[in-house]
């Protein structure tokens, strides 16, 4: 943290200046936001990079900041980051605390299973072992509403769920299909897992911005529209989710929140 002097992250957004911009992403989500030895990869990262470019920052002016799920609102409120692209679903609750640009991706809660698994419906989960991360509501929903006899196993991270799936400790992992696809697409797991393709919920990924910063919201929305229209969005989807048999939704319209 030697950069406290720049606490109002990149507010001097005069294009191409010597300034940097701080952007919040996930570090441990393959396909979305992943810290790699030589940089950062993932769909969120690509979107954020494109948006930053439109806001006037080159890739080398971006300072990536890890924003874990629980930290996202407060990081924005305090101005630690300019914006956040970190599997951030737009919800009414969150909209009270932060503003969202986008959505830029429509994801759905889904199940990941082994390729040879016979789980095709959520109800098949009855009597099966389902994995999710500690405190996640998506798994609880399945147990409460769809498959009351499912066994819920909670781990600290999705990586551990996936490892459990591979070793046979659990039968299925549930969360957003984009996240699951990211894992399934990883070199080490290629060909071992499949998505069930169930649309158990709608997750509208948006870019979080400090409450009231309408100017940035508008700028980002413009950038997102451009990204879709010039084909960069499609490329990003192909690059990051391509290896999994992930059938992505078409690019959502700005402000068009599917509930």
């Amino acid at each position: 943290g030697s950069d406290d002097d720049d606490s109002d992250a990149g507010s001097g957004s005069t294009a191409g200046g010597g300034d940097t911009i701080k952007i919040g992403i996930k570090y441990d989500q393959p396909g979305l936001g992943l810290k790699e030895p030589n940089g950062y990869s993932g769909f969120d990262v690509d979107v954020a990079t494109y948006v930053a470019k439109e806001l006037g920052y080159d890739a080398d002016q971006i300072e990536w900041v890890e924003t874990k799920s629980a930290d996202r609102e407060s990081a924005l409120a305090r101005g630690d980051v300019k914006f956040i692209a970190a599997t951030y679903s737009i919800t009414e609750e969150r909209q009270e605390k932060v503003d969202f640009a986008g959505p830029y991706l429509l994801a759905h809660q889904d199940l990941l299973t082994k390729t040879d698994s016979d789980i095709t419906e959520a109800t098949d989960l009855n009597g099966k072992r389902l994995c999710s991360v500690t405190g996640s509501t998506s798994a609880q929903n399945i147990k409460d509403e769809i498959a009351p006899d499912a066994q819920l196993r909670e781990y600290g991270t999705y990586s551990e769920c996936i490892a459990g799936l591979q070793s046979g400790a659990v039968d299925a992992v549930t969360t957003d299909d984009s996240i699951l696809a990211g894992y399934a697409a990883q070199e080490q797991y290629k060909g071992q897992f499949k998505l069930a393709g169930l649309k158990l919920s709608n997750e509208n990924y948006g870019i979080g911005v400090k409450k009231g910063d309408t100017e940035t919201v508008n700028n980002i929305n413009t950038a997102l529209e451009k990204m879709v229209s010039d084909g960069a969005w499609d490329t990003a989807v192909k690059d990051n989710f391509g290896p999994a048999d992930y059938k992505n939704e078409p690019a959502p319209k700005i402000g068009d929140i599917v509930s």
Partner: protein
Amino acid sequence: MSSVLYDAPGPRAKRRNIILSVVFFALLALLAWWIYRALDDKGQLEWALWEPFTESEAWTTYLLPGLGNTLKAAGLSMIIALPLGAFFGIARMSDHRWVRIPAGAVVEFFRAIPVLLLMLFANEFYARSTDVSTDDRPLYAVVTGLVLYNASVLAEIVRAGILALPKGQTEAAQAIGLRKGQTMTNVLLPQAVTAMLPAIVSQLVVIVKDTALGGVMIGFTELLNSRGTLAAFYATVIPSFIVVAIMYIILNFILTSFASWLEGRLRRSKRSTGAVLGAEDVEELNAAEIGGAYGSGASA
């Protein structure tokens, strides 16, 4: 040579020991085999899972920065906790009630509470009541929790270090006319500090281990937490755990060995009264001893 438990062994005892060794060895081998089989069955021994750890990037991107943060938090905590602990330790031995009792209460309070709760609480406190940036907050919270707890433990180490000195040292100093302050600075503290060194070093082990709480519970990117990021990238969960555990073991083993080397050196040293607080006196110094320590110093 005989010990408390065993007589000097005769030929029959020696033979029996050899048989026991063989049986025990067989048991250990069986256990090792079972572990090997289980790992192999689950494909955990595949080279692909272990290969990342032979690549320098895995170390420079994840493990070493994580280790750096672990050491940074541990070092900072120790540096801040030491003077604080010394202060409370000496305050607790004051002749004045109104100094001694509050100091004792503070020390006892923070020793009774889990470090994890202190960290969670500090994290929330910084988030709500200060404008420490999110980057720094986990470090602040971890260090705060560790300092509060360890200063209390160090306070007890300091006190024990001074009490461990033979009473004759104080009396001899007073007998040649040294005053209270002079006795403390010229005679007691220099000897107590030496006596405490091994205890302080081994307290570092406790601190290093406790930094991991910050990784799991408040997202401080120390070694254990960096393991998570690494595991996500290389998709190698169990091996990453094993590697990280080994790193902790080596790091702490170095510290423990240093502490016991120091302890041995001090005990043998011609410059001490033989009063040394060893590693074992510290590991979990706790309320029970303290309850006793309120009593008179005259235990026969």
